[in-house]
């Protein structure tokens, strides 16, 4: 054996070091036992043992979204691999760069229905950017390089690398390639100058522009360029759920979120504008409602790195395929400052008539909790949210100042995302507080990760907006199904305080509005373990404004004028101190 000869498992570890991987989120098993053996003496790469493979993938997503780096997952074959599927699909929808390494049974057993065998390549084909089965140890280093390259370039996404047990045990000389050439993969970064010029013509003629900004701005690290463009044009900015944080929420040009639960004024502005500049956003149905009626009077410009995102849902006038940052850099010098005084005044008027609002009282409102988290953290925290009402209230009431602060499952809408994602984010971001916002439903979908969070002494702030319901489904049943609350009551919730304590974390519970701030302040003082805060909120509260699914701005429901109209039920105080 030459000195350079290594096993597949050793090549795996060396290759990850070449890729500057800091953290692996994973879970061992039979098919990867050799790989774990090679990891055992490795101090450069920290392995975080989650308590479920789904948690590992969401943690890797949270880490990636918070840092901009590629998230890395390592799991075993069969059930280990299939447990990653939801997380992989989530990352695919939200363009999160991940490399997921799955163990596989030995090559001679593939197809034999062997113990812990699953065709994970077949299973994940439609939910990955690409996937590889490594059939020969000589291909391993190249494949790992290609996987990181594909995951992190162009429109980012998850890549699965399936590693049979015998391949990882066989040996070959190790040489990590400097680059890989893939003849079918050439992401296009620089927008076509002819298209940029066409866009400039439309922009310079506009009096009522709107910037419609999505997660692509964050992925391409283009917040500064976006800010410069908005300021130069005096153009208001509406952000998608994934785009929150791309533009500072507190700025006068920010209209907050648009879409189904977006602000009234951002939706009306998009409806009335004469020029819609879509930047790294994809005209998702939660934004457009009825696509035929979306922003009917505007000329539309669409900047996106993914050609298939263009004119998929809504026809645009000028598509520009390219990386948002590169395109904006070339676009900004060519556009003129616009006279938008009347337009901005009009939007201010709409904002005054239909602000985001709620009415506070003795019983806790979820919106209030989010607002207080915002105040205490000054908009600087990293917030992960789950899916449903908690996610929408966080989007509406947390004024994100910075990109990579809002970590949520936008496309797939995965319950159980928030908490493990916060664990991953906490490993990536050490200088800012990390808050995980949850409903009482979603937190129970990956509650086992309390062991991971407490075991690693992560100073996570876990917030449960506890209304005893699957709140968003209940809201739809309320509004569209004659209040027939079918199977949305969560009757048997655990005592979350005791649960936290049993894992070695700290727990608080309250159903009183005036206790929210003291608890949050107390939680901020705890630096050596997770803190779980069980806020028992008003039970039947709805998220407003709301454009019903497939609807138009004309059908937008605003917050009911008086609290009496809401018929608020009693707070969910059972068991609260």
């Amino acid at each position, binding site marked *: 054996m030459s000195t350079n000869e290594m096993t597949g498992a050793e090549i795996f570890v060396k290759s990850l070091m070449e890729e500057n991987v800091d953290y692996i989120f994973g879970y061992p098993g039979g098919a990867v036992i050799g790989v774990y053996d090679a990891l055992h003496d490795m101090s450069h790469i920290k392995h975080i043992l989650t308590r479920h493979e789904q948690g590992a993938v969401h943690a890797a997503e949270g880490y990636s979204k918070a840092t901009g780096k590629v998230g890395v997952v390592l799991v075993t074959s069969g059930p280990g691999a299939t447990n990653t599927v939801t997380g992989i699909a989530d990352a695919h929808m939200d363009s999160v760069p991940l490399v997921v390494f799955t163990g596989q049974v030995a090559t001679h057993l593939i197809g034999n229905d062997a113990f812990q065998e699953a065709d994970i390549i077949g299973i994940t084909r439609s939910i990955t950017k690409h996937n590889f*089965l490594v059939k020969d140890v000589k291909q391993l280093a190249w494949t790992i390089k290609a996987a990181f390259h*594909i995951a992190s370039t162009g429109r980012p996404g998850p890549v699965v690398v399936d590693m049979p047990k015998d391949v990882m045990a066989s040996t070959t000389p190790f040489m990590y390639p400097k680059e890989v050439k893939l*003849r*079918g993969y050439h992401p296009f970064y620089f927008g076509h100058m002819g298209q940029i010029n066409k866009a400039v013509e439309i922009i310079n003629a506009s009096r009522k522009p709107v910037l419609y900004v999505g997660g692509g701005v964050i992925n391409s690290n283009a917040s500064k360029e976006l800010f410069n463009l908005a300021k130069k044009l005096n153009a208001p900015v509406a952000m998608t759920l994934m785009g929150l944080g791309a533009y500072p929420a507190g700025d006068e040009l920010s209209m907050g979120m648009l879409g189904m639960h977006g602000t009234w004024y951002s939706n009306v502005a998009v409806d009335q504008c004469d020029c819609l500049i879509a930047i790294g956003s994809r005209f998702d149905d939660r934004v457009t409602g009825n696509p035929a009626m979306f922003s009917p009077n505007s000329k539309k410009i669409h900047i996106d790195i993914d050609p298939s995102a263009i004119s998929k849902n809504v026809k645009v006038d000028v598509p520009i395929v390219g990386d948002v940052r590169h395109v904006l850099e070339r676009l900004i010098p060519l556009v003129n400052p616009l006279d938008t005084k009347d337009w901005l005044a009009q939007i201010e008027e709409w904002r005054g008539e239909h602000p985001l609002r709620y009415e506070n009282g003795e019983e806790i409102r979820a919106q209030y909790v989010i607002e207080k988290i915002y105040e205490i953290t000054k908009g600087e925290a990293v917030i992960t949210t789950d899916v449903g009402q908690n996610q929408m209230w966080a989007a509406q009431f947390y004024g994100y100042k910075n990109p990579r602060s809002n970590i949520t499952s936008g496309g797939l809408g995965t319950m159980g995302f928030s908490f493990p994602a916060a664990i991953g984010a906490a490993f990536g971001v050490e200088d800012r507080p990390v808050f995980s916002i949850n409903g009482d439903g979603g937190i129970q979908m990956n509650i086992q990760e309390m062991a991971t969070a407490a075991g690693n002494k992560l100073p996570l702030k876990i917030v449960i907006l506890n209304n005893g319901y699957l709140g968003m489904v209940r809201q739809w049943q309320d509004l569209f199904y004659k209040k027939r609350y079918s199977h949305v009551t969560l009757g048997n919730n655990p005592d979350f305080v005791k649960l936290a304590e049993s894992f070695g974390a700290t727990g608080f519970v309250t159903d009183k509005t005036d206790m929210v701030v003291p608890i949050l302040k107390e939680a901020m003082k705890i630096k050596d373990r997770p803190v779980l805060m069980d806020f028992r909120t008003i039970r039947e509260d709805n998220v407003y404004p709301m454009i019903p699914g497939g609807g138009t701005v004309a059908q937008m429901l605003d917050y009911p004028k008086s609290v009496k109209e809401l018929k608020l039920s009693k707070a969910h105080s059972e068991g609260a101190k």
Partner: protein
Amino acid sequence: MKKHTISILVENKFGALNRIVGLFSARGYNIDSISVGTSEDDSVARVTIVSKGDDDVIEQIIKQLNKLIDVTKVMDLTYDSYVERELVLVKVAANRNTRSELMQISEIFRSKIIDISPRSITIEATGSEQKVDALIKMLDPFGIKEIARTGRVALKREFEGAV
């Protein structure tokens, strides 16, 4: 809805065809026919797919195909000048009375009889989809026992119109 002939070059390796077929089923696009074989380059397979769809659906199909890492080139030949052929094998019932008529039909279509038995003959024909359809229509009254069609293969014409 127009029929489109899409020619795809794809890395000739494990699972690559699966990615293409999977994309069509996952996104609800239809496949009228598909044919696969190696191209002029051993490491690349040529896949010819005939798909029906509105222009914007076909545009999405082509963009989605281009996104596949293993796909190196996608051409919609529909609006180009191109040659297309399909091969069909038809096993049709034959007896002493019908055999000579079948052979005449086969000749008219410039097809070949490649198997014969007391009760059947098997005809091999090549041509455009319409020609193959017409042959099948002509053979139908005799009693078709089995049909195997390859689906369309196509290449762009080198010269367009008069040179």
